[in-house]
């Protein structure tokens, strides 16, 4: 009986693995197709300082990261505490880091472009 249950769980787990593999593959293929065609409507329309295409890439990437962490790394089976310790810490620090560095990078670019010194001679 116990063996039967284990077997059933394993079949469900396998199904989940292949499903996630399917999702990850489809998302990657979408990314590659979009990256190859680069539809001009998506490239030349900006939302919050970045083209829609780049937003799509980043959102799809985070979605892929979610599936890898939750399904492959079994985060979905961990306790709420462990999940929060790992995910919240990472997400918070990374958001902070990115915000600081990108704002600063944008500022320096502005100085290069609008300043009175030429960088190309």
């Amino acid at each position, binding site marked *: 009986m116990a063996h039967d249950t284990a077997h059933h769980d394993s079949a469900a787990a396998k199904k989940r693995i292949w499903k996630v593999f399917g999702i990850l593959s489809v998302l990657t293929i979408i990314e590659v197709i979009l990256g190859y065609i680069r539809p001009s409507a998506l490239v030349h329309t900006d939302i919050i300082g970045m083209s829609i295409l780049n937003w799509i*890439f980043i959102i799809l990437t985070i979605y892929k990261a979610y599936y890898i962490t939750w399904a492959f790394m*079994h985060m979905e089976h*961990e306790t709420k505490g462990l999940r929060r*310790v790992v995910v919240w810490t990472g997400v918070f620090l990374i958001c902070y*880091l990115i915000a600081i560095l990108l704002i600063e990078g944008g500022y320096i670019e502005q100085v290069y472009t609008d300043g009175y010194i030429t960088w190309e001679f």
Partner: protein
Amino acid sequence: MDTTAVAKTGTEGKLWGGGSQPLKASYGKLMMWFFILSDALTFSGFLAAYGFSRFKYSSEWPIADEVFNHFPFLHGTDAPMFYVALMTFILIFSSVTMVLAVDAGHQMNKNKVVTYMALTILGGLVFVGSQAWEWANFISGEYGAVETRSGKILQFVDASNDNKRISITDIAMGESGTERTRHNESEGIWYMSEKDLPSVTLQQVKTGFEANENLRVRTMTLNEEGEKTVLDRATSLDYLNNRGIGIIEGANLTKNEYGAPLFADFFFFITGFHGFHVFSGVVILCIIFFNVLLGTYERRGSYEMVEKVGLYWHFVDLVWVFVFTFFYLV
């Protein structure tokens, strides 16, 4: 030890009251998560630094589709991203075999663990090999460029051929205009030599460029369309003759023919650091693999070690997903 007097806290039996395992994870697994989190922050630091430099040079950053457009056995074909997409699939698939090995471990099925782990190791090796090929292409370069005195680069296009890129070796003609030969160790007073000289000289490129009316210079600057600016013939000649100081072929840590020098630095550093993770992942997988073969975990009654190395392996895949996006897509 029951006699030891410890004051009651009133939290006995509660989740965090002590004496229980609130996170329900073994020490080893917890430590692996700690490591992964810190490693994730390291990679984020690198990628954020890449983003910083890219924002800083956002008007002149190289276009990834033009840089990474090689595919094995399709020499000369413009195949942007397909190779790296293939690499991504290889890594994702090795992640799948890894998670299948973990699953087989849960069922204490040694043979299946062995098969799936072997496949995972194979996937990892193929990935590292692919990355080496990618590096080799990147380092050797394709078209070459001329460096200007301000450290920018000038690339060349053929206006009669739809502004397609043209290699400096195809342009070059005439006298080399220099007596310069490669400095060998045997001739120096100190034990130093230099790398190969560029295959053509600036003088030859200038001569060839003047001889062919259809050639144009392409600068690093991105225009409104997000494409590199192609100069008109007169400006091209002016830029080449008055600003050009040398030839760049391929890429190294200080110069590269693709554009901003930082681009190559970040490419080497980030994909290199990731490749190093894949490599060390393969080594750790091999160690665990042989332990599985020897029956260590069978005797221990738990394949949790496979699960732990699996966590690391998936993390490497996770990082690649981000590297793929930020280096090749965005």
